[in-house]
């Protein structure tokens, strides 16, 4: 987001609108009628299916409602109180943050290293390797869930029995059924599943760095390590900010993978916020509600939305602070 803001500002500042032309708002709106018309399909879809539902759900937070018929049982702030007092909700928040804060750094480091290797123009079969590492992204979480579950099941020479043979463990491991390992396994699968996105983003970013910079650095006697820290990292900063923000957004919304692998279990050990909300809204394993309750689910998502907005604001402020300090240091 911060990138967009600065881009907007940069573009606006060198060409200020001519002071003489200051037509009224009505005329400016009429002059831009085709712009509005072109924006309309996107605007209508977004307003109807993304923005309106967010506000509509806020209305549901005050009702005890199972989703059938019209909401009628007004309960005030009781839903919020119940969610805030539910340890499973806070556990889900914790798991989501653990997921994001382990997955994002590990995955970004892996993706950057891989992108640096694959970006080398002398590397043969770069396209082949790029495809290989991107393919999990193309795969639905549903298929991933089924296949990984079958692989981890203890049929024949499974991963568990192989480890047992090497003497690392004593026998049967129920990777996804053990509360101590389930979240770690899901994080590992998450890293595998979405690495390709960040690989491609980093590759795209690397391709925007002019090759002359590296040639000039080489002439000046820079080694590969030095040119990495002096050229690659600073030139990737802007793209990097977007990649980090997108990676966190994606991780905070994790749902499919957890739902198909464990459904939030065992004993809520892998319950993330979105599976918690889903279970509240449509029934299932969440302890807070045996019956589906849209009101509770909406309250939980509203609170989580607030949490994410606060976190995003902090993230944007921090990144802005860093880039401003760097910019000052460069000068």
């Amino acid at each position, binding site marked *: 987001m911060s990138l967009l803001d600065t881009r907007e500002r940069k573009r606006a500042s060198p060409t200020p609108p001519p002071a003489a032309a200051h037509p009224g708002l009505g005329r400016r709106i009429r002059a831009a009628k085709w*712009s509005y018309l072109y924006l309309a399909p996107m605007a209508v879809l977004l307003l109807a299916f993304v923005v309106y*539902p967010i506000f509509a759900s806020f209305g549901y937070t005050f009702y005890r409602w199972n989703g059938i018929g019209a909401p009628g049982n007004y309960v005030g702030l009781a839903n919020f109180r119940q969610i805030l007092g539910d340890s499973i909700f806070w556990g889900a928040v914790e798991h989501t943050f653990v997921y994001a804060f382990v997955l994002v750094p590990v995955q970004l480091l892996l993706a950057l290293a891989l992108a640096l290797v694959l970006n080398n123009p002398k590397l043969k079969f770069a396209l082949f390797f790029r495809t290989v590492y991107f393919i999990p992204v*193309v795969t639905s979480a549903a298929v991933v869930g089924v296949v990984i579950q079958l692989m981890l099941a203890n049929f024949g020479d499974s991963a568990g029995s192989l480890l047992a043979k090497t003497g690392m463990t004593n026998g049967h491991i129920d990777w996804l059924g053990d509360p101590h390992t389930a979240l770690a396994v899901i994080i590992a699968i998450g890293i595998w599943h979405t690495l390709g996105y960040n690989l491609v983003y980093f590759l795209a970013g690397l391709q925007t760095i002019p090759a002359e910079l590296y040639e000039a650095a080489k002439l000046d006697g820079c080694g590969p390590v030095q040119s990495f820290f002096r050229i690659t990292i600073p030139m990737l900063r802007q793209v990097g900010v977007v990649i980090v923000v997108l990676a966190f957004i994606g991780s905070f919304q994790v749902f499919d993978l957890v739902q198909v692998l464990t459904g939030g279990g065992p004993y809520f050990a892998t319950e993330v916020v979105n599976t918690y909300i889903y279970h509240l809204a449509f029934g299932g394993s969440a302890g807070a509600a045996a019956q589906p309750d849209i009101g509770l689910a909406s309250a939980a998502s509203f609170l989580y939305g607030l949490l994410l907005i606060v976190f995003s604001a902090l993230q944007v402020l921090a990144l802005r602070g860093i880039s401003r300090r760097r910019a000052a240091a460069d000068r």
Partner: protein
Amino acid sequence: MSTLSQRPRPRRQLSLRQGRRGLLYLALLGGGLIWLYPFLWALGSSLKSTDGFFSGGLNPIPSEFHWSNYSEAWTQADFSKFFVNTVLFATGTVIVTLLATSMAGYVLARTDFPGKKIWLGLVGVTLFLPHGYTIIPVFDLIQRLHLLNTLWSVVIVQSAGGMVFGTFLFMGYFTTIDRGLEDAARVDGANFHQIFWRIMLPLSGPMLATVGLFACINAWNSFFIPLVFTLSRPELHTLSVGMFNFIGQNSTAWTLVCAGSVITLLPIVLIFIVLQRFFINGLAGAVKQ
């Protein structure tokens, strides 16, 4: 003497570099094998016999090849119908997404109008909000539009979900195109529509491929949206939904489940491989700004 002693040195350096490069390729291949292992395993398991599946464990190589698993999965689980539905769903989503995001991206990048910054801010904020739970009001809206249990509802809801990212990509791409092109066209008498449809859109081929591919992948893999909006019409199910029903009905036919996974995967992987050379170029164009 001196020339003789110096001669072997370049050769040794070369072989050292070659060795290092060989190691690099080996590491890339090894990593790639780990990365693709689940797919190889699913492919192998889809050809195993039921007994072979249970005794085979993590070994992906079947002892005998049961090609009939595919024809069985295809007919028994109605995969042919799901396949057609998924193709229609993905195609519709790609068309709606490309039209809406390219037009919006163009006007947001190249024209100025009152309310533009407010709109951009709102669009940005929606990126951060959790959407999953909003399915209830969306369901309500679709019901009131009398679109429930149609493929249209799935296309529309799916397209709406991918709108923001695609718009940002097009916006970034259009800002990189030289403004002189538009000015020249305008001097030649081209109007707003001609500039967009005849000049800007044809120029945005890589971005059309990128956004289209994203939309196609997401639609193909979408599970929740088609499940919710075609719940009571099994003949409208997509592959991912159909596969899940199949698991519920045949919880022991794991070889068929693996065959179903491969049937679901293969087309989208092929589309990706065909279109992927545009993909990175498109993204690079968008982030260049």
